[in-house]
């Protein structure tokens, strides 16, 4: 066994050997450590740095356990050791099987011994520690053997006392935690593998010992289930990642263009996923039931093409305008019947329609907000920009995903430029020659942009109005352009305005990054303005249609009444069959919902067309011309004027967002729109991937995407909210058409819900609902929410303040440390005064200061003592520094704090227990005195 142990250590030392560590470490300490470690390492002579590193890491591992035992470790060291030994030995005895376990045990023992050795040394503080330890370990072994042999046969789980059980349980839990967090440790694989095996073996061994009597089976079962669960989760995760589509494609793009362009495609994929879910809702709960169980086409008027349109209903031109058979199909609102339940399943289609329409918004909101929260979770706070401009440029500017030499060259160039820029910026911090001119130019630019925004809004309003006039004319006389004017103009505006804005923005001379933000904001305003103008114009149309519908409705009712009275007077009966008219001949209202749906579908389709055409012409054709005409042209086309196109990330993302906005708005009136959008995103993924790879060149200015990730999400949220408004408004206020759609015949669309509550649910739910909608209940609820918001806001502010405070303290602590290192006399007057007042310096373990520079207030507290401890020396000798005392009393070489990279382990150590103060501190402190 010992040889095996030795081997292990050797391996571990090898592993750690490459770990960076303090060659800068103070020599004496390192040597001491080495001396201490050498007995353990057998004949092998490790580098001092190595051993120390190893030990320290073990310390970290031990931290939790130490915490568990620290209470005991207070007074009688030796006694406690004995006890501990006994306990562990007994434990061992209880399950005297398995070599494996023994190995684990040994490992444990060894660690404990080491700790103990340190402690001993700390306590007695002389060279005896070495020998003592060895002796001690020998004794331990003996005792252990004896124990295991004696208690081996009598060993039974029930012999474990409560306390032992608890500690054992705790240990097992620790091990489990260690297994879970092992991957977070920057160690070599071999080392982790070994540790994992050990821990697993340990857990395996002792888990069974836990729980006794009746609870035991249950416990074992639980453990087994937990194990199964972990395995299942992992498999499920694997499965999930296997299901993510286009991983390869995106990776390809990533390596060519860096993370920024790839982020667009990731966004596209995310959007696709979202739309897929929406589509599943829409299709599964609305479209499919209607198709399967609803009345077939041609059975009732709303499902039939009217006689007047019938002869042209199959024309391609009509179908492309979504008239004819398209208009009277499941794609649009009007097709759905208002029967309360359909089919054998008694499916409540109108209710389902309403709930899905609203649920789409609910789901989208949830997903967007969750994604935003997750995004803001990772990747730093990014709050204090400007604090680390240079360091960020230096340490984080390389994009490791880049795998293409051309992109790499671009990246080099852009990094160099940014370095140079920031140096120049730093050198002459904003020397503005003519601030008045610039201001004037900026005002002018904004004025121009406002003008063009207003102009585009007016243009759209004008065109929509005109299209309403056209709609009243005969369709045959209209040209194609006149029919599609609205969509055409909107797409054109979206195409022309952004470059125009960019040109105007040149006047402003902003920094490119700020300019990009302005540009995005303006394009956003443009799209939004256009969309809302379009909506308002549409509302006018809807109102007009509502008027028309009212008259038709009155006429229909009058006609029906007429028919009934005629029928009853003619046949002299009250049993009147419904009028025998072919569904195609029934006079019907204009059905404004379908009209709105058609508008949105047309808009989406034309948007798709324009986007694809732009890519085809703007990128592909251009690339072709540049590539092939370059052989016979006067100047270098590739480097000169046209060159290849760049991928416009922000424009594309905004386009996607607005497209999604239209989908959200239109989905309620055109259930087929979601399906259309899924198709669009699918093709777009392949098409744009192809276009980017084949005809675009990497950005010259390489932007990083991550920062704006949440920015885009925020835009999406805004768009979602803005598209939610009109839909909810129409649902709540406008009366549905009387002869089409699932809500026909009702006063309001939401009456469906009321009906269901009244008729189908038990009465008390109706009561609850009435109470819940009572203003008396809603107002307090709103008030409560406002209060909660206020409270959370206040807390977050407090946290912010605390953060600031901590930062300040951290800086102070570092200053102090620095000064201590330089042995400057007075660092901080306040501190000095404080120290003079402190009578007892040895109360607190001083070594906490050598821990990693404090990141938390806990540390800050700990860092005071060393100073205290040091002072006396300084005070006694006046100015002179008594190194001997300094070192022996505590204050470790501050460099130790610097050279050790405690960082990665820092937080975990923190979380698991108090900074391993006493033991380590004393252990560190002693060596000098041994000299």
């Amino acid at each position, binding site marked *: 066994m010992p040889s095996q142990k030795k081997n292990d250590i050797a391996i571990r030392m*090898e*592993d750690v050997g490459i770990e*960076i560590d*303090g*060659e*800068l470490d103070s020599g004496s300490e390192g040597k001491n450590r080495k001396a201490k470690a050498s007995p353990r390492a057998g004949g092998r002579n490790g580098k001092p740095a190595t051993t120390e590193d190893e030990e320290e890491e073990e310390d970290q591992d031990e931290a939790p356990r130490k915490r568990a035992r620290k209470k005991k470790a207070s007074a009688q060291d030796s006694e406690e050791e004995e006890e501990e030994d006994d306990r562990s030995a007994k434990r061992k005895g209880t399950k005297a099987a398995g070599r494996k376990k023994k190995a684990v045990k040994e490992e444990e023992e060894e660690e404990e011994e080491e700790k103990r050795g340190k402690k001993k040394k700390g306590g007695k503080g002389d060279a005896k520690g070495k020998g003592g330890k060895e002796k001690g370990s020998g004794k331990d072994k003996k005792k252990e053997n004896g124990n295991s042999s004696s208690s081996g046969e009598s060993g039974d789980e029930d012999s474990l006392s409560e306390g032992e059980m608890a500690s054992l349980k705790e240990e097992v839990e620790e091990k489990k935690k260690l*297994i879970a967090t092992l*991957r*977070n440790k920057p160690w*070599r*694989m*071999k080392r*982790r*593998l070994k540790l*994992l*095996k050990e821990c697993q073996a340990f857990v395996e061994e002792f888990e069974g010992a836990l729980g006794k009597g009746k609870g035991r089976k249950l416990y074992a079962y639980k453990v087994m289930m937990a194990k199964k669960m972990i395995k299942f989760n992992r498999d499920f*995760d*694997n499965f999930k990642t296997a299901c993510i589509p286009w991983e390869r494609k995106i990776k390809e793009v990533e*390596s060519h263009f860096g993370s920024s362009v790839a982020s667009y495609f990731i966004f596209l994929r995310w959007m696709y996923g979202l739309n897929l879910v929406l589509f599943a809702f829409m299709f599964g709960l609305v479209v499919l039931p209607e198709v399967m169980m609803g009345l077939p086409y041609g059975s009732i008027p709303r499902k039939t093409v009217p006689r007047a349109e019938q002869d042209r209903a199959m024309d391609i031109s009509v179908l492309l305008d979504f008239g004819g058979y398209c208009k009277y199909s499941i794609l649009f609102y009007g097709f759905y019947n208002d029967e309360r339940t359909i089919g054998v399943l008694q499916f409540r289609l109108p209710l389902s329609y309403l709930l899905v329409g609203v649920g789409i918004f609910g789901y989208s909101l949830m997903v967007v907000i969750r994604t935003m929260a997750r995004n803001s979770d*990772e*990747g*730093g706070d*990014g709050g*204090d920009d400007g604090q*680390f401009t*240079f*360091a*960020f440029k*230096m*340490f*984080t*500017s*390389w*994009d*490791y*995903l*880049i*795998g293409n*030499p051309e*992109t*790499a060259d671009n990246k*080099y*160039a852009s*990094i*160099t430029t940014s*370095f140079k820029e920031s*140096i120049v910026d*730093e050198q002459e911090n904003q020397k503005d020659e003519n601030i008045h001119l610039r201001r004037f130019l900026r005002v002018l630019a904004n004025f121009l942009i406002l003008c063009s925004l207003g102009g585009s809004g007016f243009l759209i309003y004008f065109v929509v109005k005109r299209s309403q006039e056209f709609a009243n004319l005969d369709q045959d006389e209209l040209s194609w352009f006149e029919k599609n004017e609205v969509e055409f103009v909107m797409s054109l505006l979206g195409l022309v305005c952004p470059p125009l804005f960019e040109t105007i923005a040149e006047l402003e001379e902003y920094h490119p990054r700020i300019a990009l933000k302005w540009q995005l904001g303006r394009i956003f305003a443009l799209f939004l303005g256009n969309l809302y103008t379009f909506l308002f114009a549409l509302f006018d149309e809807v109102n007009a249609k509502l008027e028309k519908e009212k008259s038709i409705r009155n006429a229909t009712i009058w006609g029906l009444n007429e028919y009934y009275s005629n029928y009853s007077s003619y046949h002299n009966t009250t049993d009147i069959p419904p009028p025998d008219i072919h569904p195609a001949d029934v006079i019907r209202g204009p059905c404004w919902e379908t009209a709105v749906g058609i508008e949105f579908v047309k808009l989406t389709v034309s948007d798709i067309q324009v986007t694809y055409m732009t890519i085809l012409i703007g990128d592909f054709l251009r690339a072709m011309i540049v590539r092939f005409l370059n052989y016979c042209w006067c100047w270098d086309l590739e480097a000169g004027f046209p060159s290849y196109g760049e991928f416009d990330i922000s424009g594309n993302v905004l386009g996607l967002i607005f497209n999604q906005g239209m989908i959200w708005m239109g989905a309620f009136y055109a259930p087929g729109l979601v399906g259309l959008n899924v198709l669009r995103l699918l093709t777009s993924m392949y098409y744009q991937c192809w276009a980017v790879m084949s005809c675009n060149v990497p950005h010259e200015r390489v932007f*990083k*995407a*991550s920062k704006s990730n949440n920015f885009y999400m925020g835009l999406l949220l805004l768009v979602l909210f803005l598209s939610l408004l009109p839909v909810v408004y129409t649902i709540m206020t406008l009366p549905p058409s009387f002869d089409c759609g699932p809500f026909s015949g009702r006063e309001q669309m939401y009456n469906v819900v009321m009906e269901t509550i009244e008729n189908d649910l038990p009465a008390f739910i109706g009561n609850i609902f009435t109470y819940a909608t009572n203003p008396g209940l809603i107002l307090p609820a709103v008030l409560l929410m406002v209060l909660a918001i206020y409270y959370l806001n206040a807390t977050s502010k407090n946290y912010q303040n605390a953060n600031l405070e901590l930062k300040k303290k951290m800086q102070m602590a*570092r200053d102090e440390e*620095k000064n201590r290192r330089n042995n400057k006399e007075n660092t901080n007057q306040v501190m000095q005064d404080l120290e003079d007042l402190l009578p007892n310096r040895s109360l607190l373990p001083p070594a906490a200061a050598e821990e990693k520079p404090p*990141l938390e207030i806990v540390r800050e507290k700990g860092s005071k003592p060393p100073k205290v401890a040091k002072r006396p020396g300084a005070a006694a000798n006046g100015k002179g520094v008594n190194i001997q005392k300094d070192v022996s009393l505590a204050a470790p070489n501050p460099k130790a704090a*610097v*050279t050790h*990279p*405690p*960082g*990665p382990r820092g937080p975990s150590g923190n979380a698991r227990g108090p900074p391993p103060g006493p033991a380590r501190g004393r252990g560190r402190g002693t060596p000098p005195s041994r000299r």
Partner: protein
Amino acid sequence: MGTTASQLRKDLLSEYQELTFLTKQEIILAHKRFSELLSKEDRNVPTPRVPMEKVLSLPELKSNPFRKRICHVFSTSDMKDGSLTFEDFLDLLSAFSDPATLEIKSHYAFRIFDFDDDGTLDGGDLEKLVNCLTGETDDTRLTTEEMRQLISNILEESDIDKDGTVNLSEFQHVISRSPDFVSSFKIVL
């Protein structure tokens, strides 16, 4: 370790999954790519090493200015030649994978940037780092004056204890504020 077989052993695979941030598919893919890099005679050695030149020929690393440093940091070779075993290779991929934590990424980033392996980023390290970032060509290089200015600026920002070098905790402090680091410190096979 049994990794020489063209197929990974099942228990090893699950252990690797436990120990890295990689999924099963990624580990298998990594194994495939690694086996492709191995030369014929190496396959029968118990723990084969791929020499650094071969690793650098991977397209994922080809254009990376830090490729040699990356190999050196992750190599467990005694010869300091930057050669990688499969486990080193997995370590590398795990540190550069998407779900890896900021902590681990920044740790390795620090070691990659620490060109002389002395545990701190001093002036020399920073200078080499800048040279790596600006490329080899002369027109992208910074002048000595600019370099001096740049390095002093960086130290001013991130060297909190003012000892003229950036140590790991200072480095991690800076990195943890960066919004870009986690998303760009990635290598995907």
